[in-house]
């Protein structure tokens, strides 16, 4: 098992070229999966016996919520790798993740509120999942705020990496305490996100959407990563042909 494969992942020129080459391989499959998922979710899937067609919001809410958490964990893992082994590319990945994760956390909040309205009668009902999502948004904002606050790029990378790791340790604790807090004051809300007995016609589109969004995230990450890698590279020779192209 030669380690050169892993070693190449840490070298900026290889990563830049690899990212440029791989982007379409993730972008197009993502588009196909999402379109298929939308078609399945909006047209083929039967309406929910309780919420009628209102439940179809799940096809955008669940993937957004999944993205918000998956992207944060990806950010924290790459931040930790960058911190421990001092790999600039890992910090570039973490920096690329933040805006993507934050925007989809916002999407999850809005779609969640829009879904909650018909069921609860109000847009915001301090449902434990949505409250945790809101706190996650603040974690993203804190991360991006810290990164913006520090001028020196290398120090910004390493300081925000510590915050990302501390944040990811706290995410489960926050979720547990919010759920615990919610169960004190109200009966658990009736919002069933992923119903266990979901018929295949409903479930399949959801899985397609989750796959599509994940592929879309990787494509986006690869685009942003090229920019972040360039920003961290001093006037190295390989930049010359890449930039002038």
């Amino acid at each position, binding site marked *: 098992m030669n380690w050169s494969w892993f070693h190449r992942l840490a070298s900026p020129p290889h990563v830049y070229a690899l990212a440029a080459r791989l982007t379409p391989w993730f972008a197009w499959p993502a588009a196909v999966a999402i379109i298929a998922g939308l078609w399945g979710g909006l047209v083929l899937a039967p309406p929910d016996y309780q919420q009628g067609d209102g439940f179809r919001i799940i096809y955008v809410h669940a993937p957004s919520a999944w993205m918000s958490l998956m992207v944060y964990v990806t950010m924290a893992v790459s931040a930790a790798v960058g911190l421990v082994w*001092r790999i600039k590319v890992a910090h570039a990945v973490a920096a690329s993740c933040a805006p993507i994760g934050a925007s989809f956390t916002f999407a999850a909040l809005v779609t969640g509120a829009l879904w909650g309205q018909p069921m609860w009668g109000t847009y915001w009902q301090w449902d434990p999942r949505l409250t945790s999502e809101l706190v996650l948004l603040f974690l993203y904002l804190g991360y991006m705020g810290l990164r913006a606050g520090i001028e*020196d*790029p290398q120090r910004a990378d390493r300081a925000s990496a510590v915050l990302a790791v501390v944040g990811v340790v706290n995410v489960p604790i926050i979720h547990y305490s919010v759920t615990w807090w919610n169960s004190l004051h109200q009966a658990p809300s009736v919002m069933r996100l992923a119903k266990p007995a979901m018929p295949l016609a409903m479930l399949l589109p959801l899985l397609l959407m989750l796959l599509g969004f994940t592929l879309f995230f990787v494509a986006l990450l690869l685009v942003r990563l090229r920019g972040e890698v360039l920003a961290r590279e*001093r006037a190295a020779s390989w930049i010359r042909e890449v930039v002038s192209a």
Partner: protein
Amino acid sequence: MPAERLEVENLHLWRGEHHVLRGVNFTLARGACLEVCGANGSGKTTLLRTLCGLAYPEEGRVLWNGENVRQDLPAFHEALVYLGHEPPLKSDLTARENLHYWIGVRRQLGEAELAAALTRVGAPDWCDRLVRTLSAGQRRRVALAAVALLPLPLWLLDEPTTNLDTEGRELVGDLVREQLERGGMVVAAVHQGLPQSVRNVTRLELAA
């Protein structure tokens, strides 16, 4: 106890676009002093901070007794004293209190020893006044008392003679000479150079 020596190989460090350390190389044996000269901004402070492990070089290594300092940084820190160009003193404490806390964190320190160091730097009559009320030269002397209380193999001094009168500069010369005589090493970033009384000094010029 292997003979202490400090080897610095091919140090490169950038601050953003500015290539501050451009391939610094030197080896320092026991009892030797290295004078680092250069205009402002030529990287003297950055070099000292890289030597002690505070700053991280993009390329190159610092070896202590043949071993990369990054292997066991705390052990390397136990063998060195770093004095920045600002004496690290709390202005709301007296000189004596400052030393008691600062040096006490690193070694057991008796009152007698502390008093002796204060006397040595000419501080007995003002060492119980708040540092806030002391002049820059007096503050520098308190920092020199601290260095005198830490007879460790490697001293990294950033412009130790600033704000000092001639008598103060001689004091720095004496302290460095004693350190070299007991087999220690000194790397000093200086503007006008250390007093002539110091022997066995090699000069390293950092181009701006």
